[in-house]
């Protein structure tokens, strides 16, 4: 495709164009198929040499040997029988409104159209634009170093809120996080972390705690903030914010994401396009059921 610069690249990537071309191909395929199939009207069944070869090859693949003459005759007889009954069934319209045939055809159509109606090889500019619109997705995680002091919500004596507030007051003027090793209620949660990802913090303390600790001012004790384990005073000693990764570093991921989105969008667009050709008539909506549904 890249070798045909005269066609506008954008047009080449247009899913609906693909769909139109595909439609043409299917039509061509079906028309061609028709010419080799016996027409029902003239009551002729033609088995070509190619078809005989195909049957023999399929047999050989299955049984690991070519069919004998008798077996070949049997295969051809069966093929003729199938064609005769198939044509008669079509003539009677037995293919219409048959749930098996309907679903089969629907699935065939989906296999033909799904995942084809988009350009799987985007150029750099397309990916770049996709990336530019979603830079929040392609970031180096925020990293931080911090220490924490935990207060158990069911601690004996002072309630956790009071104990944390008093400890915080006592720690005004502290010059480092050393108190994390000795204050508060003992916990097996680690007390200090050295430049870990925000995702790691979330895995240990939960998302709400993580959001708060990312907001905390560095260089002093702050809090208390809550986690599933109680209340925490925190000392943030170092922090590197989320940083957008350069396109070159995430090109592969961008391409995968782009393809994923395109595939879904293209499949949906194909269906929408087809749907637009129809007027859909539905029965009037049933009265809303009490207690059903749910969100």
């Amino acid at each position, binding site marked *: 495709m890249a070798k045909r610069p005269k066609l506008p690249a954008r047009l080449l990537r247009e899913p609906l164009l693909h769909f139109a071309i595909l439609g043409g191909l299917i039509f061509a395929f079906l028309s061609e198929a028709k010419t080799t199939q016996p027409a029902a009207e003239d009551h002729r069944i033609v088995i070509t040499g190619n078809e005989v070869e195909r049957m023999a090859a399929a047999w050989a693949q299955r049984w690991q040997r070519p069919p004998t003459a008798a077996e070949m005759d049997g295969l051809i007889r069966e093929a003729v029988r199938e064609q005769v009954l198939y044509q008669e069934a079509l003539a009677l319209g037995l293919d219409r409104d048959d749930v098996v045939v309907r679903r089969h055809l629907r699935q065939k159509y989906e296999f033909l159209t799904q995942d084809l109606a988009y350009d799987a090889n985007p150029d750099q500019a397309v990916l770049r634009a996709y990336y530019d619109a979603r830079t929040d997705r392609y970031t180096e995680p925020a990293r931080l170093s911090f220490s924490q002091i935990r207060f158990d919500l069911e601690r004996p004596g002072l309630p956790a809120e009071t104990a944390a507030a008093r400890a915080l007051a006592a720690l005004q003027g502290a010059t480092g996080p050393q108190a994390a090793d000795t204050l508060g209620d003992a*916990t097996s949660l680690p007390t200090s972390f050295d430049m870990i990802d925000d995702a790691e913090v979330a895995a240990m303390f939960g998302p709400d705690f993580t959001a708060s600790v990312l907001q905390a001012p560095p260089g002093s004790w702050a809090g208390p903030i809550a986690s599933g*384990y109680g209340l925490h005073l925190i000392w943030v000693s170092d922090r590197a914010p989320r940083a957008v990764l350069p396109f070159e570093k995430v090109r592969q991921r961008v391409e995968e994401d782009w393809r994923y989105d395109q595939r879904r969008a293209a499949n949906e667009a194909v269906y929408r396009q087809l749907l637009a050709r129809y007027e859909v008539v539905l029965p009037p909506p049933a009265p809303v059921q009490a207690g059903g549904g749910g969100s």
Partner: protein
Amino acid sequence: MKPDRLKTIVLAAIAASPSATPALAQQDIADPHGHDPAALTTLNKAPPYSPNAGRNFPDRPLFGETHLHTTLSFDAGTFGARLGPRDAYRFAKGQEIVSNTGQPVRISRPLDFTAVTDHSDNMGFFNEFAAGNPDILANAQAKGWYDLMQSGKGAEAAIQIITAFSNGSFPIEIMSQPGTKLYQDTWKDIIAAAEEANDPGKFTALIAYEWTSQVGTGDNLHRNVIYRDGGDLAVQMDPMVTLPPHGSQDPVDLWKWMGAYEQKTGGHVLAIAHNGNLSNGLMFPTIEQFGKPVDADYVAERARWEKLYEVTQTKGTGETHPNLSPNDEFADFEIWDKGNLTMTVAKKPEMLQHEYTRMALLNGMKLETQFGTNPYKFGLVGSTDSHLGFSSFEEDNFFGKTVSMEPSPERIAKPFVKTDIGTVSEWEVGAAGLAGVWAVDNTRVSIFDAMERKETYATTGTRITVRFFGGWDFGPGDAETRRPAQVGYSKGVPMGGDLVNAPAGKSPSFLVAALKDPIGANLDRVQIIKGWIDAEGNAQESVHDVAWGDATTRKPDAAGKLPSVGTTVDIADASYTNTIGDPELIAVWTDPDFDPALKAFYYARVIEIPTPRWTARDAKFYGLTPGQDVRMTITERAFTSPIWYIPSR
């Protein structure tokens, strides 16, 4: 036994003198039981100021999946799964995807690792089958399944296909087999998907497959094979299958394949067996397997290749059975004991002893006496066995085990498997489980090596953190440490390890520290389960409560039995509150009945307070009234790998 519950520190000094100077206050509010730098020095020569320097153990376990099927598994595809390995990894990394039935779905938090384990037999068959490949549909049986599927009876077709596969009547001429192009293309694509998704340090995609051995009409002997290696090695050999001419149903032959793979490539693989509960007495043999006596070779090879066992998943939990452990009040948990995998042969009581983890651990020690090696010296993991193309194990976000079970108002009342022998309902399918791995780095090598040394545990789907160490010198003060890992690794061995050379007059002691899931339910209790072979050669077991929530008010009764933690579950609202239990439990426990001459194992079990089961969430969401027999609450739990005590000869 008095609990060594986490002690709390009183800030009385602050209360008494709020105006104290910071320096003074700091001294006064110091934790008297806290970590003592002087004591640490003896463990850790000249500790650096930074607590992180030289730290070679992880802050948290890695959580992941070791058992997941996609559309490339012939049965999953037949059940209607359209999602492949790439979708599975996207989902595991926390991105929203669209399920097989068109419903948007997202995991609550990303996983750290995932192994996609599609069935090696007939791998990739379904794609060709569904596309109507004429060579496949030329087979009358395949055509029958195809028509069934096309007429909207996909689940029925799936059952028939699985049954045919299980009882060996699957037509071999249409099978995707090793050596064929279809097979090799499928295997290469599975590897390529893992290579794309693998992101060392952040997310590990383990290359893997499932070897699906079924004996008779469907006795489950399945194993997942996990690779330590990248695609450059894994691609060099097609996976082991079960059907002739390339395969075998006998695990001994799988181990030979594993040996051949390692020999040929210089790589490493391990096997994880699962669902002994559906093996009808075959998973953990003690006398005979595949018509041959269990012998020294069998036990040695099994111990060499099968370092882990999957103890919990959607098709039931197999820690122990109420009949095997009548004195364990928590034994009756998500049990599947009606028959084999296909429900073609009913369960008999004598089968149970060869199906469940705890009894296998006991029998393994007996076999060790007989043959010199313990074949059942395995660590534990949990995983899903999902056939959806993505992992599903969260009670409030459960998409079932197969596509026919994706959320709908009907699923709670439908049968999952139904035969003349019996019925397993879809409500009995569990939202479980997860593998917790104490790996130092999030890489294939580090995770695999932690699995090899059994430093792993299983959860029934929640992210409980549990550390478990055994040694000879843990004392009550160690339960008050702020660095259980540092103390644990310094003074003992972690889960999966051995205790040897018992010092005269000493009993083994254990440090166990558990944290609740950071966004989940509080903990009810931590237990240590001991199993041993007594002087007469009989298997014995005991369960010990070693730490529990609400300990200031909740005391064991005169008989030593700890009262129930109670419940806060509002079934109608599918909700609970963390007003009972504790977020964190830590204890040191010393075996009160230790005999240095007797083999023993010890593992920890952590139990959460009751929470709504996925069935309660369904009932609320769809406005249903489930049948009386439908379980609506669950007590999620974690099981650690054991620590074994090995007597001196």
